[in-house]
């Protein structure tokens, strides 16, 4: 008996064009055709009109204003963006059995769907049309035999494009890609490679795997494969996110510890609630802050036992904050990130703490139920009470200046 060969892999990468800025231009037609950026402190997203002036994500707003004085700067509406993203990802799930989603992009595993869809390029065209009709937004799609090639193919036809790299063309396509395009090669690695006169993925192939490993450690072996167009990372539904981040900049830079710790408690509460909803418990807690003068600090520590309980996570987060917030400069941004998750809700402690943990889990389950019905802001705890009256509220809780999303 012969086992049939598995169908050739086919991955479709869907990237939402200028995501936040495109939504803002759609919500307000007066912004169409104008350079628009969304962000607070730095650019989170910019329209293609803004990109023509050299603006790009991550650039400080002060620099953006210098390059393009007429730019329209918006602080953004995270809840709205999330709704649009969910709509787009729902369309992706309608065509692909497995979809891995990020903030503004998705990988759709179309392997084995040829009999269902026929021509996969035509299926991608149909998906683009469906997304446009449902949301008014354009997406760029790349189709390839693996995730990396699908994404790189899309990059050649932005915005609103569709490109395909077949397995047969993969070698030639990859050979001419600049080294910066190879996933894992950041600015520093690219500088190292260029100093060695290695400018393209094809030229990178000259290095044996041992040399790459000596240069870049564990990443070296991956680069050896990737510069040859090979990527073995599969599309995963990623039911467990890599991290849950809740971060915001203050409406006005502040050094008021009551406000800062109140905000941290609120951010921890939001992040823990998301973890409980997903049935996961974080092991690692990170706190990130940025001062008004641009200097930043970040540190992370692991809990003794993974926990999704607000007070347990908050205790560690406050410790991290107090250790980092040492300068006499007002804070601009504060964020908390939970990561290193284990599956299973609640909290597991030692034998004698079990009863207390059980009671606490029941309490937070009850809190979550009330918040699901009446909104997160209906229950505000401890230090976060100090935010009442300082921040606007809606049914999602306090209206943060630059909220971030689960990744």
């Amino acid at each position, binding site marked *: 008996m012969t086992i049939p060969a598995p169908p050739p892999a086919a991955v479709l990468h869907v990237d939402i064009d200028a995501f936040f800025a495109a939504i803002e231009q759609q919500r307000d037609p*007066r912004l169409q055709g104008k350079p628009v950026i969304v962000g607070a402190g730095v650019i989170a997203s910019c329209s293609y009109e803004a990109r023509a002036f050299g603006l790009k994500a991550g650039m400080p707003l002060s620099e953006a204003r210098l390059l393009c004085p007429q730019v329209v700067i918006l602080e953004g509406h995270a809840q709205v963006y999330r709704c649009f993203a*969910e709509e787009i990802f729902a369309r992706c799930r309608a065509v692909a059995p497995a979809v891995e989603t990020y903030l503004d992009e998705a990988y759709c595993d179309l392997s084995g769907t040829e009999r269902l869809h026929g021509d996969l390029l035509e299926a991608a065209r149909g998906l683009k049309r469906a997304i446009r009709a449902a949301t008014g937004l354009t997406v760029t799609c790349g189709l390839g035999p693996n995730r990396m090639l699908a994404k790189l193919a899309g990059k050649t036809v932005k915005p609103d494009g569709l490109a395909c790299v077949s397995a047969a063309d993969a070698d030639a396509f990859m050979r001419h890609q600049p080294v910066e395009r190879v996933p894992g090669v950041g600015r520093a690695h690219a500088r190292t490679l260029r100093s060695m006169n290695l400018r393209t993925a094809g030229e990178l192939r000259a290095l044996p795997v041992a040399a790459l490993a000596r240069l870049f450690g564990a990443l070296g072996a991956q680069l050896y494969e990737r510069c040859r167009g090979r990527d073995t990372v599969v599309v995963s539904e990623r039911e467990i996110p890599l991290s849950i981040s809740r971060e915001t900049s203050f409406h006005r830079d502040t050094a008021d510890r009551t406000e800062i710790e109140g905000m941290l408690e609120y951010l921890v509460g939001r992040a823990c609630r998301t973890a409980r909803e997903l049935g996961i418990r974080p092991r690692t807690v990170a706190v990130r802050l940025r001062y008004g003068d641009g200097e930043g600090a970040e540190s992370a520590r692991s809990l003794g036992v993974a926990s999704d309980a607000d007070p347990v996570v908050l205790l560690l987060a406050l410790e991290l904050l107090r250790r980092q917030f040492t300068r006499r400069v007002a804070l601009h941004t504060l964020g908390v990130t939970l990561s290193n998750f284990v599956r299973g809700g609640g909290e597991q402690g030692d034998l004698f703490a079990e009863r207390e943990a059980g009671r606490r889990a029941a309490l937070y389950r009850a809190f979550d139920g009330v918040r699901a019905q009446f909104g997160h802001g209906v229950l505000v705890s401890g230090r976060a009470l100090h935010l009442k009256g300082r921040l606007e509220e809606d049914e999602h809780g306090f209206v943060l200046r630059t909220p971030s999303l689960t990744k």
Partner: protein
Amino acid sequence: MRTEALDEAVAVRAEFQGGVVTPVAFTRRGREHRIKRVNARWVDRVPRHPHFCFSVTDESGDVYQIQLHAGEMVWWLDSVAVEG
């Protein structure tokens, strides 16, 4: 461009056709604002019952955000975007 929060219940005239709701006009402070264009629509599914959200331009060219809370069937006027 800046957004002014309004956050008030509002009376809306709307068409319900083919399972799709489209606002036609809303009345605020006794004045009817006829909707010239629905710029964008999206659904917020985080609340227990979905909120159907719309960005609309009225006849005077102002851009408002309104939403229908499907649970209570209440229309809500969120904000207006003003130039300057």
